[in-house]
């Protein structure tokens, strides 16, 4: 089984997000691996462990710091790491998807995994677009994957806790929402060993695509409400909560 995982390096939201002009101030923000991609890598490694094969992790290097994420993926069980030297922190999903598709094209992938969405733009575009460019079927909201022969059985999550089981012929692109198991922990000794020994293949970005959209304005969300802190001893707090619920007609 030839498995490819497309990952995305995104600005961290652990901190307040700095805005500069009409976009994120990329110089004063840390980049981290998108959370769904961590699940995507785990799902890929689980499929490899179940049926054998190789896992190749590939991503666009937005600010020249993707190596850490790739070393982590290798320590978690990926076999090969590739970075596309994008060097453009503002490259949008259309652009990244095009570059990724061009790089993945010759890899002979049976399954391409991508996180179903990234927490920076929440667009969920990378997976479906890679599928479109590579002419493969796409299925998103994926919560488990079992590969058998030339097809895969995939669980897809819908709203309201509804799930559906699909059989998809390979090759396919799957947008992973959550892995069937929480992503494994990679001990730092393994990560550091990878950092010292592993080679990361570099690929120049190829192809062009644009969303056709222009950022007109970016601003932090307007705060519309505040949580009210109820002070006092537990008895006083309980009393106030009961009063509050009564006043809202809930008790």
């Amino acid at each position, binding site marked *: 089984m030839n498995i490819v995982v497309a990952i995305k390096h995104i600005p961290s939201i652990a901190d307040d997000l700095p805005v500069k002009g009409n976009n994120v101030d990329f110089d004063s923000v840390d980049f981290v691996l998108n959370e769904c991609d961590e699940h995507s890598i785990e799902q890929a490694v689980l499929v490899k462990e179940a049926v054998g094969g190789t896992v190749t992790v590939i991503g666009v290097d937005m600010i020249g710091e993707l190596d850490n994420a790739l070393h982590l993926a290798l320590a978690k069980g990926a076999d090969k790491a590739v970075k596309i030297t994008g060097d453009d922190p503002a490259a949008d999903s259309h652009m990244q998807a095009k570059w990724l598709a061009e790089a993945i094209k010759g890899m002979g992938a049976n399954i391409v995994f991508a996180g179903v969405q990234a927490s920076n733009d929440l667009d969920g575009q990378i997976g479906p677009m890679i599928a*479109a460019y590579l002419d493969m079927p796409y299925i998103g909201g994926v919560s488990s994957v079992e590969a058998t022969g030339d097809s895969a059985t995939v669980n897809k999550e819908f709203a309201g806790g509804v799930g559906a089981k699909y059989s998809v012929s390979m090759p396919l692109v799957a947008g992973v929402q959550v892995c069937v198991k929480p992503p494994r922990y990679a001990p730092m000794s393994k990560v550091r060993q990878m950092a010292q020994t592993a080679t990361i293949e570099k690929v120049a970005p190829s192809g062009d695509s644009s969303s*056709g959209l222009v950022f007109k304005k970016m601003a932090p969300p307007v705060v519309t409400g505040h949580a009210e802190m109820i002070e006092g001893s537990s008895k006083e707090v309980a009393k106030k909560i009961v009063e509050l619920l009564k006043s809202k007609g809930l008790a």
Partner: protein
Amino acid sequence: MSNDVFVITEHMDGKFSDVSFEMVGKAKELASALGGQAVAVVVGGGVSSNVFASDSTIHVDDAALSNFNPEAYGKVIEALVKEKSPRLVMFGWTATGMDMAAWLSAGRACHWRRMRKYRRGSDDELSGIRRQVGSRRCRRR
């Protein structure tokens, strides 16, 4: 290109989702400003499609389309969009919409952006306010 606004509706077990109706409401507003029609698009077999207050409804009715299948639904909508050439196609930001919108946009040069509030600008321009990184308050409707 026509001035029509297409709404790709969603259904499960014969019931349409709330976002389908919300989108039709918005589509009517946008279509009337553009001088086109708001069109509800229903893909699916055995579903009663006569429920929308849109200007018209297109129902692609086939038993093979009873349950959501991203590839089949996507190809049907692709053919429809190519044939009718609407100004705007609206999808819900949902498990079904997200499977198809970006896929269509990559192949067909129409654009897909997640929008929370939108208004019409001048001529060919549609403005949307979207939540960028940093806000976790409005993940889903």
